[in-house]
């Protein structure tokens, strides 16, 4: 069964990919890091850096976290607040 993951891109990553939102259709049980690899493969000319920060549903998450249908996956450039 496939799941839908709403993916958010910010700042320089939105610029690199020319979009700030992507709707990904992914196999059930896929890990967050694998979803990022899929995004990277879909945009080969504008590759995201090899390491990125992730958040799932608004909380920082590690690459090995499994994704569920309806999750909000955010791919975050290095933080620069303050």
């Amino acid at each position: 069964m496939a799941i839908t993951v709403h993916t958010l891109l910010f700042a320089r990553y939105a610029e690199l990919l020319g979009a700030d939102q992507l709707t990904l259709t992914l196999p059930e049980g896929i890990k967050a890091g694998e979803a990022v690899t899929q995004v990277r493969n879909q945009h080969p000319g504008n590759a995201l850096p090899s390491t990125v920060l992730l958040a799932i549903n608004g909380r920082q998450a590690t690459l090995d976290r499994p994704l569920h249908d309806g999750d909000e996956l955010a791919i975050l450039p290095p933080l620069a607040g303050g």
Partner: protein
Amino acid sequence: MYLTHDPIDLAALITQVSSAEHGGIATFTGAVRSSHASREVVVLSYSAYGSMAEHECAAIVAEAEKKWPVRVALAHRIGDLVVGDIAVAVATASAHREEAFAACRWVIDQVKARVPIWKRETYADGMVAWVDPTAPDGIVLARPDAEAARG
């Protein structure tokens, strides 16, 4: 709400934390500097992952108030700022100055480490860059044709 598009009013943050029992108030304000990475900054545009940024700010304030006997106020501005504009402000009030200082310092460090906010600098020479603390000179030049992607 910790993120705001309006100018930050430090006096209002101080009022928010002041009380008759909390005599010591420490504050930190970060204003836009005129130079960064040896370039002359004219505009600094802040963007955020809004919902997560609000959550992280609230968590930082709650954690600080648990770590120390302090009251904490915090505000971070979003949008286009010019040199001298306040981007972030923290106010901490405590009965004793040691705790006010320690909490204030901790909160601003945590904001920089945890809150999903990004900065895009426009320089006097027209160049544009993303601030990236992990990059060798602290910035990554932006693509000049990518105006539409500003977060």
